[in-house]
């Protein structure tokens, strides 16, 4: 669908004919509609009363009401769960950035014994079918006394987020000229000092991606949170949401309203970092 318009060389607006310009915008508008429509439908559904949702009516707007939202916010522990999710996700994001940055820097700058093992480890970790191996991980957390404690979730999320982020940060650090490291060494900085004082400030876009990725990983995770959090005062949003699905029926209105409320903060974080995302994901593109 993009073959003709996909002329990579056309970077200047004035050289485009009106016809092409229309085609370009039409394509993007169509893609945007596909991308936004499901989310928009979710929002519209959350504004319908229960009786309408559970019929075959598919009007976009039908007896709009905020009842679902007031019920989710007022009559469930939604705010507690939201606070839990924020705490877990923020800690995961901060630690995730720190850990993936140090690891990424090490594998970008040094060739040390164990280098290839580390790279493989980062990759193999992502191949692990978590769904199947939750029992040994649970037992491990139980052995550490971390069941129903947030650290168990943070640790588990870090193992899913950090490998990708470290891999990506390596790509990013590869694009930072080594001459900067050299300058730091000449000034008498240790490798840590160089990393902390010179390289990190230059890597904000990469760090933004790592933060966003870690945050989203924690924010959206269900399986670990369901298994580890045994008290409903410790539920995260994703676990709490499943309370609206009973044994025999789902509360669609509450589910959709809660889903919107869950998606909004994630989208907000995204808006904050989205400018950096593109540059950040460049991930080694200029590596020679």
């Amino acid at each position, binding site marked *: 669908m993009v073959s003709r318009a996909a002329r990579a060389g056309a970077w200047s607006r004035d050289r485009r004919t009106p016809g092409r310009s229309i085609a370009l915008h039409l394509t993007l508008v169509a893609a945007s509609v596909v991308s936004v429509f499901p989310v928009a439908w979710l929002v519209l559904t959350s504004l319908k009363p229960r009786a309408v949702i559970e019929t075959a009516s598919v009007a976009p707007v039908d007896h709009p009401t905020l009842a679902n939202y007031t019920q989710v916010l007022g009559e469930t522990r939604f705010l507690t769960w939201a606070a839990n999710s924020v705490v877990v996700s923020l800690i995961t994001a901060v630690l995730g950035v720190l850990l993936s940055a140090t690891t990424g820097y090490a594998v970008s700058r040094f060739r040390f014994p164990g280098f290839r093992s580390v790279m493989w480890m980062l990759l193999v970790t992502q191949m692990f079918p978590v769904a199947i191996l*939750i029992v040994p991980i*649970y037992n491990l957390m*139980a052995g550490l*006394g971390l069941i129903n404690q947030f650290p168990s979730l943070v640790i588990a999320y870090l193992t899913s987020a950090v490998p990708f982020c470290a891999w990506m940060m390596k790509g990013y650090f590869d694009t930072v000229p080594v001459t900067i490291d050299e300058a730091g060494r000449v000034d008498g900085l240790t490798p840590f000092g160089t990393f902390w004082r010179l390289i990190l400030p230059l890597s904000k876009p990469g760090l933004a991606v790592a933060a966003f990725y870690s945050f989203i990983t924690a924010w959206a995770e269900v399986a670990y949170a*369901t298994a580890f959090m045994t008290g409903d005062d410790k539920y995260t949003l994703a676990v709490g949401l499943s*309370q609206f699905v*009973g*044994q025999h*029926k789902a509360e669609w209105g509450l589910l959709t309203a809660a889903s919107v409320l869950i998606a909004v903060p994630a989208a907000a974080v995204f808006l904050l970092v989205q400018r950096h995302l593109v540059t950040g994901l460049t991930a080694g593109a200029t590596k020679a």
Partner: protein
Amino acid sequence: MRRLLPAAAVAAALALAVTGCGDGSGDAGPAPAGSAAPAEVSGTVTWWDTSDATTEGPAFQEIVKGFEAAYPNIKVNYVNVPFADARDKFKTAAQSGSGAPDVLRTDVGWVAEFASLGYLAPLDGTTAVDKPEELLPVPAASARFGGKTYGVPQVTDTLGLLYNKELLKKAGYDEPPATMADLKKVALDVKSKTGAGGIALNVDAYFLLPFIYGEGGDFVDVQNKKITISSPQSVAGVRIVEDLITSGAAVKPALQDSYTNAQTAFKDGKVAMIFNGPWSNADNLGGKVFKDNPDNFGVAPVPAGSAKAGSPLGGHDYTVYAGSKNLEASYLFVRYMASAESQAKIAGKLGLLPTRTPAYSAPEATANPKIAQWQKPMETAVERPWIPEAASLFQPLVEGYQKLAGGQTSTEPMLKDVATAYQGILKGWSL
């Protein structure tokens, strides 16, 4: 098969009502017969409730408050765990010894499995079991495994035939169909005379059981360790379903979200009949064709097959985790929660069916018309195989049923495949 509420038992229940639990006020419940004086027992009981958090949970929490008032030294930590997660979550926690609750609301189909794995405390001779003679026999059997008692029944349920009276009347019927043959006839008449669909099927193994039981079949024959899902009786039962679909008596069933789609069609008046349980009452009465006309909503026993009318027993039992640090307190908690008084309150508020005969005639329970409405259908309830592997038996049949409803296979080869899958699950059982 045993019946749940034979006429005599119902009569006895009515008689007991006067003597047994006439006062029904929110007092401390029956005095326990155990050794430890209840007032001295202290501790914290964590209870995982799997009931619907928004509609049912509050009623149970109220009973919990009554317990806490009666036993001031025991604190109850109420946690609502979504039903869909509860089984996995409990098993993961129970095997590790960390994070499991003291008391769990356990689906009747899980008790044998949990008990066989050593996760549950045997309750025989403890304060948890109170007046066992009051318990309805079929739900009570779900709480027993290997000769021991592992649970006290909380609520019971079964499937019935729910119908839209107006649509049936338009098709020329004042009464719901009593046999499977009539079911097809009525459904086809509804279709031709009213334009609505006849019956909506829920493509789920559990909802196949009334057809299979009706012809005298079952998943397995526990006593003889025999897999009977491909027996001639079971085949005859599933053939009825196949025929309902191919003849158009049933509307084309949805395979994903099958339950919701069938319910929606019924509530919107797009189909006249559906098989469902008492839990769906409130849902149905909120539907378009019942909201302003609740009398339009009819409940009947599932139609009888050539052998009998039978539908699967459902419900929940209270069980105690074997690794609980607060066993005595947990036993007292179960005793209180499962008492006839507590059950009557739940019956009155939520319309969930009690498991003790006196509760059926308690004023709180009789105030809720749903309880009487479901008494007839409950008479058809059939005990399910209470074996540890029971939970595994549904998936192969669901997949088969989906293929059957999708028209990719027919009854006999489908059930043969299911039987083969069962042989892999039930080691050493014969076909």
